[in-house]
Structures are given as structure tokens and as C-alpha cells.
């Protein structure tokens, strides 16, 4: 049996992080959690997840910076941005930097699942 594809979720909102993780787990995804960019990158190095769900506005490393690092160091890893700070400019920038999709919070869960399934 092939191991389940891993999804790393990086978000500074703990409640959001946990509920989203649990919901994805319920649907059979293997989820990893990180509360900021630095720890997220550590988990990334150790676990090599196939997909990262990334928040943009975080303390420490910002989502954009994390996105750049991921695209440089782990070009195989796909990134979906989920942000509450939905400026068109940022969205455009993220897509240019190589994010697969950019969602605004609160995100429609069905749409999210559909996208995740597409990628994995």
C-alpha cells in the first residue's frame, strides 16, 4: 500500500489549523501542522509533504517568503494559498511565484477538497 500523500498546513491561527487538519484527516488525508513559517519549513524538510496549505499573513516568515523558499528548495511540492488578506495584487503575485491556487478565507470546503484531490 502506497503511503498516504502528506499535506502540510501552515497557519498562525491555532483553532483554524486544528479544525482544518481534523476535517482533512476525517477525509483520509495525512496532515501535518505548523504555526509559523520557520517550523513549517522544518516539517517540510523532515516529511517532504506533497502539498502545502499556506497562510500569507503570519508572524516571523511571511507566507510569501515561505512560498519562495518552497518553490526554490522543493519544486515538487505544490502550494495552495489560503489567506484572509485577499488583495488582488498579492493573489496575482502568489500565482506568479508558483502557487497552484489562492483562496480567500473563509474558504468553501468543497472547493478546497476538490482542488486537493486534483493535485494529489
Amino acid at each position, binding site marked *: 500500500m502506497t503511503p498516504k500523500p502528506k499535506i502540510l498546513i501552515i497557519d498562525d*491561527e491555532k483553532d483554524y489549523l486544528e479544525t482544518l487538519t481534523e476535517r482533512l484527516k476525517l477525509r483520509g488525508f495525512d496532515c501535518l501542522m505548523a504555526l509559523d513559517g520557520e517550523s513549517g519549513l522544518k516539517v517540510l524538510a523532515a516529511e517532504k509533504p506533497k502539498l502545502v496549505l499556506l497562510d500569507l499573513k503570519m508572524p516571523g516568515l511571511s507566507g510569501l517568503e515561505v512560498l519562495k523558499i518552497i518553490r526554490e528548495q522543493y519544486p515538487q511540492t505544490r502550494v495552495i494559498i489560503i489567506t484572509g488578506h485577499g488583495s488582488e495584487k498579492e493573489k496575482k503575485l502568489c500565482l506568479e511565484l508558483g502557487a497552484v491556487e489562492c483562496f480567500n478565507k473563509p474558504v468553501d470546503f468543497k472547493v478546497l477538497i476538490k482542488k486537493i484531490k486534483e493535485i494529489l
Partner: protein
Amino acid sequence: MLKKIIQQISPPFLKGTNIYKEEQELFNYRNLWIGVILLISFVSILPLLILTFLNLNIYEKYIQAEVEYPLVRLISNTQKSINFFITQKKSALKFIVLNTPYEEIKKTSVLGKIYLDLKTSFGNIVDLGIIDSQGIQINYVGPYELKGKNYKQQDWYKEVLIKEEYISDVFLGYRNTPHFTISIKQNISNGDFFILRTTIDTSQLINLLGSLELDENSDAFILNQNNVFQTPSKFFGEVLEIFSPQNIKCIPDSKICEFSDSTGKTWIFGKEKIKGTPFSFVLVKKPTILKSGLSILKKETLATLVLGIAIVLVVVVIISTKLVTKIYYADLRRAALIHKVEHTNKLASIGRLAAGVAHEINNPLAIINETAGLIKDIFTFSDQYKEDKKLLSLIDSILKQVDRCRTITHRLLGFARHIDVKIEEVDLQTLLEEVLSFLEKEAQYRDIHVNITKTQEIPLIQSDRSKLQQIFLNIINNAFAAVKKGGHIDITLDYLKEKDMVKVAIKDDGIGISPENLKKIFDPFFSTKKDQGGTGLGLSITYGLVKKLKGEIQVESQVGKGTTFFIFLPVKAKEA
């Protein structure tokens, strides 16, 4: 009618609104206007007045000198001639009494010879008499029988005793011809004395005055101390009548006076006493042409002055009005600019605030969303609650409301995020729908039907989204204010290929705008809702924004039928 004309010409700042209500003192255009008019009028009229009065004064003095100088000269010279005439007679008599002993002169033959000699020399001697110290005329040569007449009680005799010589006033005497007498007293060695008295005809005096060759408007005569004519006057009376001038006004520091005669005519006259006689010489003249010229000059000068002042006043009023109007409009423009900046700033801050709020709400909303989703997941995945339809519908309700909130916050963010962005591709229909979404509730409450239709495919336009939002929000807001409950607002989009412009027509079936108001609708500070707090800036700002986007805005309206705004926007952004 008159009221309308006055209203037409009265400067705008008098009827306009005061821009700065708090600074009424500082921006009182009426006071500024009046102040400028008064100051400029004063400064320009004062020299005019001074010059005119100086001129008139100098001219008057000059004319007076012109009139007065020859008159005074003539009077003085004539006085001297008359004086010479009388002194000559007096000297001759003195010579006689000094050189003829009393004994000789008592003889009729001697006195007779002297009489004849005098008559030959002077011509106008009437008679000659010797009066002794008792007052009795002891010798007499002349046409009358006066020898032996006693003069002791007569006034002239008493006078001559005191003064040694005496000249009488003119009188008619027995012959009824005017004449006067000269009497000389001569003392004799033993303390006794005698008096030589001669009567002189005044005809020679009259001839003397006649020789002055005066013009027809002048008159010369001699008066005694009691203003009785000693010689006849051409205009004022005969000999021995009384000269009675009225309203005598004398020019200061001058020998010339003015008077009016019994008919009220004004004359000028000069009077000089003849030395050594009881007589005065008087010269009378009608006011000369020079003098009347002065009054004409005065009238003309005054008329010129009045005309000058009137012109100055008119010019000053026009210039001041223009000046203050310019200042007023400059202030208006400045105020409009300040209001506009404030308005834009306000809009920007509202946008930023809305974005902040939306963003802050999005995070908790996301948590609610996921939490509710998780609960639903748990129910769905566990057998215990799988069949509990009620619980599931409750969770769905939460998720539905979260979805609704998301729509709102996304819309807010969408509205606000374009504040800093300049030109971008805009889909006008979407933008209009966005704008309308803000008025959705009001439309529902008031049952207002809003329709967006397009006649053909509308291209995306390159424009400033936030400015477009402001423009349409303002106009649609106005349309909302104009329509009644159940009213209609139709928005039609049209693409004008030849101009490469999109035409947006926003038509309402509201109250409409009257033609006079329609003319001023884009003017800053024009508002029909001032009492309700309208600033009168909304449409002027809208107009400015449309112009900035290189567009056009037009309006058509009929009272009672409704108003249509046409906005033309270029498809391609031109260089601003």
C-alpha cells in the same frame, strides 16, 4: 421687472452662500465690496475736489483783480482831479485875501475887478462876498442883492469861524441851479477878521465827471456825508436826492463793494472821500462780462466735477464688483477643492476601514466555518448522529450564514482594495452590480426596481475602478433620492463604436429637475437640499471625476417625469 433686473446685475457674492460660516467677519464680501468702493472713490474724488476748488478760487481772485484794479485806479484818479479842482478855487481865494488889504477889498470896485478876474480864470464863479466879523455881508458882487445880509446865525458862518475855511454842500439857492460855496476867513492886524465867500456853479464838476468817458453800464457821481447826490446820477437819482443802496457787501481788503438797487439788480461800486471837502466820489458799474463769465465758469466747472465724480463712481463700482467677484469665486473654488480633498480622504479612509474590518472578520469567520464544518463532518462520519436531520440542518444553517458573511466581506474588500490602484480593465456591468449591491436593502425596503440592460456586448474599459464606483454610487444614490416608493431606475449600457466609448444611461422616473436648476446642477455648492444638510458638492465632484477619466456627463430632465444621466467613458485610457 425692476426687481429682476436688480437681481440680474447684483454681484453673486451678495446673494451667494457664505462659504465660511464660522469666519463670517473675515469673509464678509459685502463689507469688503463697500470698503473697496469707498476707499477708491475717496482717493480718486478727493484730489478732483481739491483741484476744482483751488482752480475756481484762483480764477475768482484773478477776475476780481481784473475788475477791481482799473476801478480803484479810476476812482483814485478822479478823486484827485476833483480835489485839484476844489483846491485850485480855494487857493485862488486864499491868494486874494492874503494880498488884498481889508480896506481895499471892502471897495465894490476892487471886489468887482477880482470877481471878473476869477470869472475869466475859472468861469463858473457865481458871486463873491465879504462878510465882516459881525456876520454882515459888507460887500457883494453877483447877480443878487445880498449886500447887508446878516449871516451870523447861519451854520456855515459858525463853522468858518472855527475851521478858518469852509466848503458847503451843494444846494439850489435862489436861482434853482445846484451850486456850493467856499468861504475863507482872514484875520486883520487888530484881532478883527473878515470872510471871503464865493458861490461856485457845479456844472464844471459835472463836466469833470463827464470827461471820464465811462461806458454805458457805468455811473459816476459825488455824494456828501449824508449820501445826498451833489451831482446828478445816470441811474440812481437827481441832485439833492438821497442815494440808498441796499444789501451792501464789501469784498474784504478791497475798496470795491456790491449792492443791489431798488429793482434788485446787482451793481459793484467804489467810493472815495475827496480830501478837504465834505464830498465823496462814487463810481458804479454793472457786473462786467468777466464777472458773469465767472458764474458760467463756476457752473461749467461744477457740472464737469459732477460728471467726473459720476464717471469715477461708476468705474469704481464696476472695478470693485469685478474684483470682489473674482475673490469670491477664488474662495469658492478653494473651498470646493478643500471639500473635495476632504471628501476623497473620507472615502479613502472609509475604504481602508472597510478593508480592515473585512479582513479582521474573515479570520474568525474562517474558524467558525471550519469548526462548523468539522462538527458536520463528525456527525456525518459517526453513526450516532448520522440520521439526526435536525442537527445537520442546524449546522448547514451556520455554514450558510458564514457563506453569506463571506460574500459581504469579499464584496467590501473588493470595493476597498481598488482605492490605490489607478487604471485597470473594468467590466462596467459587474462594477454597476457591485455598486447596486450596496443599495440592495434600500431598494428592497422601498420597492424600487433597478434594471441593468445592455444593447450589445460591452467591452472592458480601461479606467479607475474606485472613481467609477464613486461616480455611479453618487448618481444612483441621487436617483434613489428622486424616485418614490415603487419607482424604477433603468441603467442601460451601450457601446459607441465610432467614438470607442461606452455610454451608460441612468434613467429614473422620479420628481425631475426644473430647467433653471438643471443649468446649475454641476455647480459647486448648488443644492436644493441645503436645509437637509446637502453640501451641493456631490454632482460637482462626480463631474470632476468623469472629466478626470476623460469622459463626458450629460443630464436630461423633465419635472414630474424623471431624470436621465448619460455618462460616456472611453474604452481605452488616455494619458491623463
